[in-house]
């Protein structure tokens, strides 16, 4: 096994090294069986073999692109063609359409996620109060489906419903109220379609998981229902509520497809839309797109980090 396993390794590497014009004489150890035996058998161990394909996919299609994006974002091309590290591409974000996009993105996500958090919490509280296991599991399935909804079909269905010629738009005379689907209001309303389910999905298990014993212990100790919610129920649910809110913010922030189809390019600047538009152009705009991408990743990472912290805090209580 070790014999056969080690044998091909040197020849292979030798051929590669030869191609790269490295002198074998300088590295005699390269051909010694002892040096390659360990590597060869490690590469053939089932663990390494099983992990290799996934690592390759992650490396090629995720890590390298993200690192490449970051490198380009921080690379500055001087007038003489030489390149260096700098924040010039990020400076370009502080003005004009891009700064508006950052502000808009944060605004839409903040308003959208807050509304979803309130409605979602109320709904999942009511669902937990109905106390039907069947309803709980139906809701769990539907929310997880809807939380992943988005894209062109979502945008189309809202155009047909709330667009200027939409069915509900006409029925409710929304034109008189000044509402427009193609504004930040429209985005907020459309985002609710997957944000509310996300919020319900995250908070329902917590509300359902509030043990009957806690309620009864509260009553046996003389507490009323409001006492229970004030002192026990809400404090326990709070991490999940905040966590769900943050997750909604992140989801709204990252949304590109439905917004792109709804608004198109240039109608209402948002970070993802601007990245999409810049990628379609040539020249320096690519570097600015990468800087926007890095900004976006940074905000998303901070958001998820906060989400994780809150989740962990509630996990400590709940076991």
């Amino acid at each position, binding site marked *: 096994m070790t014999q056969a396993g080690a044998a091909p390794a040197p020849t292979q590497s030798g051929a590669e090294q030869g191609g790269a014009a490295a002198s074998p004489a300088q590295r005699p150890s390269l051909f010694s069986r002892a040096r390659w035996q360990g590597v060869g058998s490690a590469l053939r161990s089932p663990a390494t073999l099983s992990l290799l394909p996934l690592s390759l996919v992650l490396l090629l299609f995720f890590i390298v692109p993200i*690192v490449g994006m970051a490198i380009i974002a921080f690379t500055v091309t001087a007038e003489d063609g030489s390149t260096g590290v700098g924040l010039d591409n990020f400076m370009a974000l502080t003005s004009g359409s891009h700064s508006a996009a950052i502000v808009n993105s944060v605004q839409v996500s903040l308003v959208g996620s807050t509304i979803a958090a309130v409605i979602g919490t109320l709904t999942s509280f009511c669902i937990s109060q109905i106390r039907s296991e069947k309803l709980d599991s139906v809701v769990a399935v539907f929310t997880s489906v809807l939380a992943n909804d988005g894209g062109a079909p979502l945008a189309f269905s809202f155009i047909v419903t709330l667009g200027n010629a939409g069915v509900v738009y006409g029925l409710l005379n929304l034109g008189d109220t000044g509402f427009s689907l193609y504004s930040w209001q429209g985005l907020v309303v459309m985002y609710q379609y997957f944000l509310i389910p996300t919020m319900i999905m995250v908070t329902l298990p917590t509300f359902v998981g509030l043990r009957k014993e806690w309620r009864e212990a509260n009553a046996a100790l003389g507490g009323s229902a409001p006492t229970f919610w004030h002192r026990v129920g809400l404090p326990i649910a709070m991490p999940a509520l905040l966590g769900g809110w943050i997750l909604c913010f992140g989801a709204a922030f990252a949304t590109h497809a439905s917004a792109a189809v709804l608004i198109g390019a240039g109608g209402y600047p948002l970070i993802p839309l601007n990245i999409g538009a810049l990628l379609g152009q040539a020249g320096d705009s690519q570097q600015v797109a990468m800087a926007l991408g890095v900004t976006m990743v940074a905000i998303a990472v901070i958001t998820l980090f906060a989400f994780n912290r809150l989740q962990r805090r509630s996990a400590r209580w709940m076991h």
Partner: protein
Amino acid sequence: MDALKHSRWVPVAAVALYVAIPVLCSIYYAVFPGGEFSLRAYSVITEDASLAAAATRTLTITVLTVITLVVTLVPALVAVHLWAPKLRPILEILCTLPLVVPPIAIAAGVMALLGMAARQGRGSVPNAISQFLQNPDLPLILVGTYVVLCLPFTFRSIDAGLRTIPLKAMVEGSAILGSSTFGTIFRVVIPNIRGSMLFSVFFAVALCFGEYSLAATLSQQTIPVWLDDVSSNNFRASVAIAVLLNMTTWGLLLVATLSAGRFAPAGRAARAEKKLQKKTTQKALAS
């Protein structure tokens, strides 16, 4: 008291209505042009060759994505659970990260890379690779990135599936009985995580059918991109197809979620228990 009980349903009903109305409006718009029922909008399926091409492209991508996902993720996770539990947190972070990185940012990164490769000039190896990955007949770049986009969800599902079964004991027990490790994994482990694997497959299919950002940025006309492109001159057709697509992805996600629960060992045990209870109560009533 009763009023209070019923009032609990109000928010639930409101949200359900909010979810249902856009769907109903879309269906209405698609099949009731001018108030009369007609499937004319769907004639685009036979008339527009670009839709067929987009559908073929989407299906090819989907099949390749599903295969790649299963073939890369399942062995990696089994290996980690079995032989290298210390690597699990690292793998978890790596597989969850794509959730944090918005698809459009991944698109940006991929564009950056392909652009760099293409700039190496005609005939160079990187340029050839870049062309190869973006081949409109077989956009492998989408397959790779879609696998990455699926990872956060499918990793969790399969990881949870593996955690509920005594993997090590199974493999050791099976080895004592004379089975090889890989034989055990095929005969014992895979059947026990069938639910998680089905979830992963259906989730991946749903994602491939619905993904827009990457495909649009990389100028690959999949069905969602086709929908957007066609909407400017034949909106009714794109809504009609969107309804179909939406129903399909919802159906797939529904099946995904249900199969995750249905085939999980706990779920199966619960159902067996229920059956048993039914039998015993029937017996008790009969005697």
